[in-house]
């Protein structure tokens, strides 16, 4: 079973700050981690390999420092890691990113299953998995909490967690699955894994040419959407508390509601 896992390196914080001048995320001083959902996808990939044999190849598109996330993936047990990195990818939106990832999956050679997290905690789009599946021309099952591959290694029954219930999907491999955190408990990298990856691991890097990407499909040229503006929402002002006897505060309240056009009193 040739398993491909897509991971993204993201800033480890729920309190992301935005530079008001440039409108971009302030990444300095914020540690980077493997996107949490993606870590569950990697764990699922490792478990599938343990059951069916084969290899786990981890792909990540990002700047050179995303190598750290790939090293952690190797320490957890991935067989091969590839950084998809090229200045030509700069400015890619989710479509251009999905295109580059789909090209990269194809470049790995024979593959049976692609796994990824539902969405990244920095962008929150949840578009990469579905778009990559479309570009690869394979079935997709998103929001998985169970991926059960039959003995034949071809038929898959996957359980999706939706807002109002569960959905069980049957499909055939090759296919792409996105997972949510309830699917498993990711393992910790072992000491031996860390020592191995630090002493004799070379993370491969593929550029746009290596994955046979068309220039028109990547970077700003390949991105139909553009971020017009990024901003931190204005903090809500303090509420107004009216104090005094009810007859007086009621009058004041009605006046405020009228002034704000919340109600109209004829």
């Amino acid at each position, binding site marked *: 079973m040739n398993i491909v896992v897509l991971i993204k390196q993201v800033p480890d914080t729920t309190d992301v700050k935005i530079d008001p001048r440039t409108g971009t995320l302030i990444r300095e001083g914020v540690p980077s981690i493997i996107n949490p959902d993606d870590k569950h996808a990697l764990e699922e990939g490792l478990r599938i390999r343990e059951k069916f044999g084969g290899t786990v190849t981890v792909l990540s598109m990002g700047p050179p420092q995303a190598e750290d996330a790939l*090293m*952690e993936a190797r*320490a957890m047990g991935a067989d091969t890691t590839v950084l998809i990195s090229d200045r030509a990818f700069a400015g890619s939106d989710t479509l251009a990113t999905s295109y580059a990832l789909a090209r990269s999956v194809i470049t790995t050679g024979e593959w049976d299953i692609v796994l990824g997290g539902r969405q990244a905690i920095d962008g929150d789009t949840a578009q990469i998995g579905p778009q990559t599946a479309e570009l690869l021309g394979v079935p997709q099952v998103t929001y998985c909490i169970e991926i059960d591959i039959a003995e034949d290694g071809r038929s898959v029954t996957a359980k999706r967690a939706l807002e109002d219930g569960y959905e069980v999907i049957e499909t055939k491999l090759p296919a792409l699955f996105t997972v949510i955190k309830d699917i498993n408990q990711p*393992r*910790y*990298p*072992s*000491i*031996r894994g*860390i*020592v191995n*990856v*630090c*002493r004799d691991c070379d993370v491969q890097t593929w550029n746009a040419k290596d994955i046979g990407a068309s220039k028109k499909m990547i970077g700003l040229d390949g991105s139909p959407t553009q971020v017009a503006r990024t901003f931190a929402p204005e903090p809500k002002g303090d509420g107004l508390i009216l104090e005094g006897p009810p007859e007086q505060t009621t009058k004041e309240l009605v006046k405020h509601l009228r002034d704000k056009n919340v109600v109209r009193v004829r």
Partner: protein
Amino acid sequence: MDFALSKEQLMIQQMVREFAQNEIEPIVAEYEAEGRFPEEIIKRLGEIGILGMTVPKELGGGGCDTVSYTLAIEEISRACASTGIAVSVNNSLACFPLLTFGTDEQKAEFLTPIANGSSLGAFGLTEPSAGSDAAMQQTVAVKDGDDYVINGIKHFITNATVAEVYIVFAMEDKSKGTRGITTFILKKGDPGFTFGTIEDKLGIRASIQAELVFENCRIPASRMLGQSGKGFKIAMMTLDVGRIGVASQALGIAQASLDRSIQFANEREQFGKPIGRLGAIQEAVANMATDIEAARMLVRYAAWCKDSGKPFSKEAAMAKLFASEMAMASATKAIQIHGGYGYIKDYPVERYFRDAKITEIYEGTSEIQRLVIALNVLSGK
């Protein structure tokens, strides 16, 4: 001079920190209150290679350096000092002597299982009458044909009852003094080897310290570790390594004391402001932070000396002496910063205070560390 940790060391520190915070911290209060050994946590630590960190990979270990080992023990002890000592004893006091003095057969049979996490090891030197004066061994080993017969009692032995492999010291020839002591490898279940009292302690209550009882315990001569009469030397060399582990444990307790003090000082308000804005609290926190950093440098330096193949007996003693006394002082300050809250069990600092004390006692009391340091310094080392 480079103070930066390597990529490998940073990754190990990060991984163990996450494990300790996510897996150990949430359950530690319950285990400590019940005095329950964290068997499941130890098993999982074994699976990720924490029980034989510096043992070569081909023997089942993790193959990392001693500096990484100190980082791991610090992070584990920051969450739970009991788990810290169980892990430290296995690495330093059981794996190290087997790796250093064991034959290939002994390594395969006894080292690999305790290095790869299948089981635990323990170290039996201390006796009721042989504490700091470790040479006063009352446990005797008598050669009988191809066997040895061991009689005596060891006490305060960490990991006793849960460990499978025991490094045990016994007097073979009293007339030779320290040169009459020999080291043996005992297995749980060896005929004549049982356990006595399990101690009820002030702190590190989730770790186990118990008696080893040998009554005509017969083992094959192949269980001798190192040469006959070299036991005292093996014990002293092993304790040098152990002290790096205990110093790291003390460092973890002190760091936890500081972590909680910072949190409390920023949240607790008195006189209309967080107490962290009061000069007296600032002084206490500043001193704690500085002392912890000083101890950390001593611990890492001792580990670096060992990794570099340099002598490290004096360095390990200094690290252990300073870190353990600093941990006790930090835990005391942490309680003072917390005031009444520090004295009750709703906050963890009273546990740090109880746990810190043992680091000044086991694997050589502070008085013994000063003796080791003085002997080294006075002889010009």
